[in-house]
């Protein structure tokens, strides 16, 4: 009997391609001189009316095939892009046009679209387009948006896109009655996903089959498919969307459609040529999406032990110029802010505000880092106020292991109750304290202080709702060769799905891992799917694949039992061979079963010939009896009642230079609980990446907008994505496994976790080293230097 692969650190199958340079990313598709290349003219202004666009000089340029402005768009293409996730609280949702109509609302908004023989010529053409703008004063930053002296959209009073409130009771009353009270004002700046591969789309119109084929670097192929069909007036069945290898997503590629995802197919059909758009780095900074920007006010009432009696949170969310992704980010902040704690009364209200900046959609963590920052800074403040140990105050407020399922009494991002399914927070806390050396730190800190060195330690806890619905599906097909082809609709951008999903199938079906091939994000193979975000892929597609493999297995056993004249329960499948337990001689391989599953028995191959010695089916019934289908396939869908809640705790020790205010990481520790692990190697890789992205967001990366709405650091020279030299040399990781009762595998999502507590944990550690309140993140040496100035009498 082969050992189960679930839980094994199996090496990734996809790496064999990637390591040989045989990955196929969207810009690697249609590498052919006949392919046309697109470029987009973008607004240089943050806020302006378009008076005139003169494209006359473009078309006489040799090698230029076409140019579009909004004037040239008709029907649905001329309408605003869809608002993907409406919400009753989003009373003033606004989305942009594929090409700006009469106004631009951020520097970088698409104004004109050019198609030429190559990208060089397309950019030559952009230089010849003359746009006359009537420049308007922009609204930049949350303060300006709240002041509302100027409006981003004339018809959105106060720049308020949405106002939403929820809670579990009268928090203000609870705070008023509490023995102790505190208030905090906290700020988190903008950052962005910045995957190393930007956005890109290739489209080919096939006039013979009347079909549109689209390759795009997306986190939701089915979403792109649906919108391309609607906007181009095609039937869904005429559009195929294929997601090739994706060079990182981290959230930004879940938004769709990008203007280019519609303009490229439009151009392909209009010109009858394959058309490609590959975004360049600057475009990614000014025309994709950002996140994180939030100002938060917290009022809390607590008792002598630091127990939360009342928590009242108000925050303002900068969602940029448009709201295609609705209120997902602020809703997640407002609910996930609670983390592993159980305040007696909680109330939260937020306003989502328009600014003349790049729009906001989820970035790995999606509002949780801000919420975690609010909650954990509050915990630290309470501990400081009471003179108690920071870990102890947290422990006092933990939901206990025997309290699950625990209903927080709120509505989560998926519209379901915020009910935690499982977890063990006290155990996690003990692990993280041991891992980082929490109890020994004060002594170390004294030692260092004695030699003039400043060190500090921080701790932060989080709970992450993962694996949100509505559903994912899977299709498992056993070929007559015995090879197993698996398809699921969500996409892959580095999570190793081809490996972990193959592990699940190999285990459930009893086939060799090497015989399983997984395809993701191809609407031709699985047209019903949602997408890869919210740490949902393993939970959703993993479960669906597990169930689909089980269906295929049921059919295998039924046919094999018939062929081997044995009872199904006496059969076993090992390494792709079905045999009768105890008598290994009586066996047939899955390929043969596959042949037997199809009454049409041409003896094309050895498997078919081998099959001729067996007879299956009831002569008294039609070859394909009712309720059965030819072929050896299993198809199933997984749709959970609600999200499953992973959790974790990070701790960091930092040193701050007394002279240069440089911040150095001495130790970083993570305790992580995502239920049962499919592939620990891959889960740890996700944590490593999340931690690095967290370090980046806490100490290096920000979107440096000036007061005119110009992004001043739209390059990798000034947007400080860390190199290896900026991340911890080693991350200590310990796992806890509290299985989820909500899915057949007991798993929880792990993709986003690593980044959630970073702002909070670094703020805590720097505050501990400096004895200066840290209320705004990210923080640079320059900013720390000035904080020191302000706090030196």
């Amino acid at each position, binding site marked *: 009997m082969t050992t189960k692969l679930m839980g094994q650190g199996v090496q990734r199958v996809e790496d064999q391609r990637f390591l*040989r340079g045989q990955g196929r990313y969207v810009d690697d598709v249609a590498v052919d001189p006949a392919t046309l290349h697109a470029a987009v003219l973008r607004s240089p202004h943050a806020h302006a009316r378009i008076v005139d666009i003169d494209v006359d000089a473009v078309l006489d340029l040799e090698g230029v095939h076409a140019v579009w402005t909004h004037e040239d768009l008709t029907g649905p293409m001329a309408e605003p892009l869809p608002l993907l996730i409406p919400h009753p609280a989003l009373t003033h949702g606004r989305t942009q046009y594929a090409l700006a109509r009469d106004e631009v609302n951020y520097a970088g908004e698409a104004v004109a679209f050019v198609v030429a023989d190559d990208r060089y010529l397309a950019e030559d053409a952009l230089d010849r387009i003359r746009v006359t703008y009537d420049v308007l004063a922009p609204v930049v930053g949350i303060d300006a948006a709240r002041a509302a002296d100027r409006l981003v959209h004339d018809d959105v009073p106060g720049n308020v896109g949405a106002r939403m409130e929820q809670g579990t009771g009268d928090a203000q009353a609870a705070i008023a009655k509490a023995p102790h009270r505190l208030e905090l004002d906290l700020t988190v700046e903008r950052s962005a996903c910045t995957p190393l591969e930007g956005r890109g789309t290739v489209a080919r119109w096939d006039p013979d089959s009347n079909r549109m084929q689209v390759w795009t670097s997306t986190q939701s192929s089915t979403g792109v498919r649906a919108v391309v069909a609607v906007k181009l007036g095609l039937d869904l069945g005429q559009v195929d969307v294929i997601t090739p290898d994706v060079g990182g997503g981290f959230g930004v590629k879940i938004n769709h459609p990008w203007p280019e995802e519609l303009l490229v197919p439009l151009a392909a059909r209009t010109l009858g040529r394959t058309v490609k758009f590959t975004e360049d780095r600057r475009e990614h900074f000014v025309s994709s999406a950002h996140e994180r920007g939030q100002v938060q006010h917290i009022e809390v009432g607590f008792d002598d032990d630091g127990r939360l009696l009342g928590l009242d949170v108000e925050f303002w969310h900068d969602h940029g110029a448009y709201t295609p992704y609705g209120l997902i980010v602020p809703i997640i902040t407002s609910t996930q802010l609670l983390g592993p704690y159980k305040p007696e009364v909680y109330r939260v209200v937020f306003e989502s505000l328009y600014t003349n900046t790049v729009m906001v959609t989820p970035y790995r963590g999606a509002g949780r880092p801000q919420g975690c920052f609010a909650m954990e800074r509050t915990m630290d403040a309470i501990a400081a106020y009471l003179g108690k140990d920071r870990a102890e105050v947290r422990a006092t407020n933990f939901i206990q292991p025997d309290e699950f399922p625990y209903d927080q009494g709120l509505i989560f991002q998926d519209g379901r109750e915020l009910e935690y399914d499982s977890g063990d927070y006290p155990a996690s806390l003990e692990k993280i304290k041991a891992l980082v050396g929490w109890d020994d730190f004060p002594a170390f800190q004294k030692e260092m202080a004695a030699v003039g060195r400043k060190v500090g330690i921080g701790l932060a806890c989080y709970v992450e709702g993962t694996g949100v619905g509505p559903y994912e599906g899977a299709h498992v097909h056993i070929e007559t060769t015995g090879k197993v082809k698996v398809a699921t609709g969500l996409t892959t951008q580095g999570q190793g799905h081809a490996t972990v999903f193959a592990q699940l199938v190999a285990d459930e079906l009893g086939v060799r891992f090497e015989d399983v091939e997984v395809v993701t994000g191809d609407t031709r193979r699985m047209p019903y799917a949602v997408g890869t975000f919210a740490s949902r892929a393993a939970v959703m597609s993993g479960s669906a694949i597990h169930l689909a493999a089980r269906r295929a297995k049921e059919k295998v056993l039924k046919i094999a039992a018939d062929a081997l004249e044995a009872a199904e329960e006496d059969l076993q499948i090992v390494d792709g061979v079905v045999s009768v337990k105890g008598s290994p001689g009586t066996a047939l391989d899955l390929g043969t079963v596959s042949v037997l599953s199809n009454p049409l028995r041409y003896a094309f191959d050895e498997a078919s010939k081998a099959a001729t010695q067996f007879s299956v089916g009831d002569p008294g019934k039609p070859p394909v009896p009712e309720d059965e289908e030819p072929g050896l396939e299993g198809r199933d869908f997984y749709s959970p009642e609600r999200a499953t809640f992973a959790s974790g705790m990070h701790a960091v020790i930092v040193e701050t230079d007394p002279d240069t205010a440089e911040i150095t990481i001495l130790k970083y520790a993570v305790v992580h609980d995502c239920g049962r692990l499919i592939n620990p190697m891959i889960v740890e890789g996700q944590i490593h990446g999340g931690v690095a992205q967290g370090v980046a967001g806490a100490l290096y990366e920000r979107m440096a907008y000036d007061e005119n709405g110009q992004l001043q650091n739209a390059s990798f020279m000034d947007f400080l994505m860390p190199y*290896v*030299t900026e991340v911890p040399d080693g991350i200590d990781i310990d796992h806890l496994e509290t299985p989820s009762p909500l899915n057949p595998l007991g798993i929880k999502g792990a993709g986003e976790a690593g980044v959630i507590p970073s702002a909070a944990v670094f703020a805590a550690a720097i505050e501990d080293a400096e004895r200066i309140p840290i209320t705004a993140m990210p923080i640079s040496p320059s900013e720390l230097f000035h904080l020191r100035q302000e706090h030196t009498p």
Partner: protein
Amino acid sequence: MSEELHDVRLRVNGASYDLRVPARRLLSDALRHDLGLTGTHVGCEHGVCGACTVLLDGAPVRACLMLAVSAQDQEVTTVEGLGNADGSLSNVQQGFAECHGLQCGFCTPGFLTTITAGLRDNPTPTHEECRDMIAGNLCRCTGYQNIVKAVERAAELGLETPEDGS
């Protein structure tokens, strides 16, 4: 007026290619779009990310910071040229496979070329030297932890089964 084209002979992974390209054609684009060697990736086009790193006469350089016409008569090695003659993975590639040194794989070719040259020049690097070897390449997925392990593993493999180092 159509643009002047220049004849250029590129030697890539041991093979010679004769191209006619405009002077402004970047080496990265010539490799990817003219030669179809799409393993070399373009991540920023201003020389910071390192995804497009290739070996020029054995030394790592940014393909996005070179003109194809300027690579005339020099030996270019891309990720496609790193594997062993028998088709098996090189020690550096093998190290990445064993240590989970890649996730989305987009930045990987630039790391592989850089490390291949780095280990050729220093086959027994210290941990610090392994980190330094990759200090000019950006990766957004891995947090670099496993890439450093991969470099160390590749060095180990190199001692067991030395290669020419391309």
